[in-house]
């Protein structure tokens, strides 16, 4: 199953490498993935750390294990855009003693110009790993300011994509299913095997995997930027609009969060997402003290022809507690109970007893209140 895609266009393999002392260093000029230009203006939600400026550089490291002092960094990949292309620079420790020199070389590269790093899961893996290894070797390695794209894609894409693995998003969001790729979990094994056999050509798949990750990371930066910059238009996918809401919520931007949810609901979401969006929007409106909007929201939700019983119930609650209209509340609660039973009947099961009981209790309460309220019957 070898389908070399654009990720290997321009890929030169080990031929690209030259020796610099113990460290091997190679450069490739590869094709980009994703949007061909950044959005303008750059979205606020994808802000760089305070004071970060300079070249945007993707970083991805390959290691001999997941942790512990015996796991080493043996390869560091850096990538940045050059016109229509991506420049990938890879540092390789062809044997274990070269780890220290590799880190020294990396420090030298980073000291040449101002850099902003972008990583995929770098906050929990690549950067702490580099920091620990540099300290272990006594190498001064100041880390440039960094943005971890994973935290953004998790908010933005997880409702539609499920998985936020880089290769998965590369396929769904950059339209590029990765071809013959080495799974990351096999990297340590391949490296040790190359040491045992003294054969660096075995590392070719690792280097290509690393380069492909870098190209995808850079492509995703602009993809995410575009998706965040574009207005919350109901023509967009409802799950993506919900992702916009998650992003806005994390940024503490209630206004954008509300707009994203409204767009999500207008975009015709599937039932589970609809329920989720409704409850989140209701929560936002309550926090904002906008009772009227909440009323309108649930009224509309309850009047949808396929409204589930819990929407009717939510509407009944608002009628009862906020609108102080027990008569209408009773009617809606009764409709909710009828809907709950009808739903169960359609499925050939019994209604959920807890929910049924909750609705019955609400109805009883409303009945009592109405009885108290109505003028006493003449004796």
């Amino acid at each position: 199953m070898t389908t070399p895609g654009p990720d290997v266009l321009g890929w030169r393999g080990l031929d690209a490498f030259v020796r610099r002392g113990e460290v091997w260093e190679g450069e490739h000029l590869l094709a980009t993935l994703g949007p061909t230009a950044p959005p303008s203006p750059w979205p606020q939600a994808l802000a760089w750390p305070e004071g970060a400026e300079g070249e945007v550089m993707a970083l991805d490291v390959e290691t001999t294990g997941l942790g512990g002092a015996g796991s080493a960094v043996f390869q560091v990949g850096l990538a940045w855009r050059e016109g229509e292309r991506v420049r990938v620079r890879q540092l390789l420790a062809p044997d274990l003693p070269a780890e220290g020199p590799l880190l020294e070389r990396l420090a030298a590269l980073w000291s040449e110009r101002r850099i902003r790093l972008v990583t995929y899961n770098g906050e929990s893996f690549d950067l702490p790993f580099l920091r620990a290894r540099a300290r272990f070797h006594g190498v001064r390695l100041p880390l440039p300011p960094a943005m971890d794209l994973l935290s953004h894609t998790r908010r933005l894409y997880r409702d539609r994509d499920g998985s936020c693995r880089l290769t998965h998003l590369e396929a769904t969001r950059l339209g590029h299913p990765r071809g013959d790729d080495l799974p990351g979990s096999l990297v340590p094994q391949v490296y040790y095997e190359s040491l045992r056999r003294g054969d660096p050509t075995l590392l070719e798949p690792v280097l290509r995997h690393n380069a492909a990750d870098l190209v995808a990371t850079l492509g995703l930066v602009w993809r995410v930027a575009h998706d965040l910059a574009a207005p919350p238009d109901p023509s967009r996918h409802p799950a993506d609009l919900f992702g916009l809401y998650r992003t806005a919520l994390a940024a503490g931007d209630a206004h954008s969060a509300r707009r994203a949810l409204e767009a999500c609901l207008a975009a015709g979401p599937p039932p589970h997402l609809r329920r989720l969006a409704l409850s989140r929007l209701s929560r936002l409106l309550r926090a904002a003290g906008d009772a009227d909007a909440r009323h309108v929201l649930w009224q509309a939700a309850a009047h949808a022809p396929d409204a589930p019983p819990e929407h009717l119930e939510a509407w009944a609650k608002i009628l009862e507690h906020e609108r102080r209209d027990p008569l209408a509340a009773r009617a809606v609660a009764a409709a909710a109970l009828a809907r709950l039973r009808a739903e169960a009947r359609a499925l050939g099961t019994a209604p959920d007893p807890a929910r049924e009981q909750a609705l019955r209790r609400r109805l009883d309460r409303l009945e009592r209140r109405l009885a108290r309220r109505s003028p006493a019957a003449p004796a």
Partner: protein
Amino acid sequence: MHLSQVLDRLAHDRAFGEQVADWRVLPAEPARRRPLPPDLDPRLADRLRSRGVVDLYVHQAEAYALARAGHNVVTLTPTASGKSLGYALPVLQTLAEDPHARTIMLFPTKALAQDQLAWLRGDLAALGSDLAVGTYDGDTAPAERRRLRRAGHIVLTNPDMLHAAILPHHTQWVHLFENLRYVVLDELHTYRGVFGAHVAQVLRRLRRLCRFYGSEPRFLATSATVGDAEAFASRLFDAPVRVVRENGAPRGERHVVLLRPRLIDAHAGVRASASALADDLTVRLVESGVATIVFCRSRQSVELHTRALKARLGEGRVEGYRGGYLPSERRAIEAALRDGSLRCVVSTNALELGIDIGALDAAVVVGYPGTVASLWQQAGRAGRRGEVSAVFLVATPAPLDQYLADHPAYLYGQSPEAPAINPDNRYILMDHLKCAAFELPFAPDDRFSVATTPEMLDALARAGILRLAGGRYYWATEGYPAHGISLRSGPGENFVVIERTDAGPRVLGEVDRPSAPTLLHEQAIYLHGGRTYQVEELDYPERKAFVRAVDADYYTEAEMASRLDVLRLEEELHADGVGAALGEVEVSFLPTMFKKIAFETRDNVGWGPIHLPEEHLPTMAAWWTLPDPLPGPPARTASALAGCAHVLSAVAAFFLMCDPRDLGVASQVRDPRTGVPTLYLYDMTPGGVGLAEAAFRRGHELFAAALERIRACPCDAGCPSCVGPGRESDAKDGAAELLTRWERALSLARAAGGR
């Protein structure tokens, strides 16, 4: 009834008195104190005074002074003597002077670490709110782990965590390693045998990392009173130590009663049952309202006593407690003891260390627990603050017990027992070299304190586990070496006992690997909670035994056949035709058959075969030869040699501070290797944990003690208490003759060698 009254009645009971070999009353002793050290930080002194500590016991003051002078210190004191303050004070004072200083405190169990945390936290708070202390073990929450890694000034943990979680992740503990000033080890004497050999390696790894980070911690330890603590500790630490022996703590009056069941048949040396005597005494104590703990040597005997006591005291008034019970069962028993709802518990030494069960009034120790230190620790379970307590040691017919009954003074004076340790067991060393290489590549001059390190590293590199590159050995395999290495017989090695019931299978308990062939072979009777289960199926590769509850009136005992081959001679000496040697051997074991023994009569009521594979044990052995056999038929010498082996292994266990089961013995009239009568004593742990070596070096003492035991035994012609049961009629005389020849020659050799 108060314990004093019960003791008074016992003292006037003639039938009981006949069986008392020794009864001493250790008088209450006042404290001996010293003022708080003058250099102590005023904040610390104030804090101590606020919790009632206005001065120190002499041993605390001495430990403090030695630690402050930069020595490694071991304090030998009994339990509950305030020993913790002796090591905590220098640590706290150092923190008062340098808030960057770090300390690791190691406890052999999680319970012991937890015990220290509260008061340490209070004392530390007196020095500043930014000083942190915490326990780092398997139960520690992730956020607390991060906090301790970043800023734990005092980290309380156990050797297992240090080995598997801290050392391999030292790059996350940089502040700790750069500033490590003290490593505290509590209950140092527990770090002997296999566990000790592992811990010695873990400490080597720790010191190696400290050198890398530029720190040089001192070791502060406490230990039960053992012989030759200085040599033991300095081997464990690879460094000279100073020992504090004088104890200044006060104590309440304690009665120590050594019981030897009466002779039934003086001629054959047969005594009444120790178990029955212990049970009678326990019933008497418990029924008089004395809260009592019964200590037994083995799991099997915990079960037998629990069964017998339940029958006499009634269900619910006594519980068994041992390793192999599920944690939930154990927690429930501990709680019932603490709140006083349970007044009697039968336990193995599982209850010795750190587990909080409150204090009981009396301890009944059935059979000498193997070490004097352990006996005192068990005795320490009885005795509420300042009140009268009692410990009864019931001697069994085992030669070791009888030896002690001959020499009750050993319990009080200078004990001849000395813990053995072998920090160079090659299997254990090999495991830890892997861990060490994972932590830090090996440079050529990095010897890890062992001469053979270069060869071993080379072997690991040839096996592809390490890689020699740029002059250093690097870890070069996937995985994480510490995960596969347990410092004790880890849970992965245990056999799980699963009960088959009509409601489906349920886990009943666990059995350690070495005991499995003899306890869990098919048809064996497995005892748990005083009930009998029969093993229906043993899945040896999967380490599972399936049992079913049965109502058996017997239990089973397995027999093993063994063979010994000498692989390499390491050291030998000759004197007067007698030889002594030390070397590597391989012992092969084959379980052969089991006997069925009736609970009531202890009669042999049947037998059956065992079908299990042969096991091989590469280990260290000491052996001794004689120039020629005794006159007469070879069987005479064979019987005498077997008698020597029986008594020698018992006294060796006493001198070397190990369990008799840690030692194996074998003997041959015409040994295939030496051609003459030969007696072997070997380590039961692969590679040896120093017992054979210590036996070789202390041969003259062992043979003298063995001879003494035989001569002191009142029997006519040999009994279980000296040369063992079922020997030729003159085995006792024969054994005495052989031992005399050995003893004389070895003493001469020792005098000549100046050793």
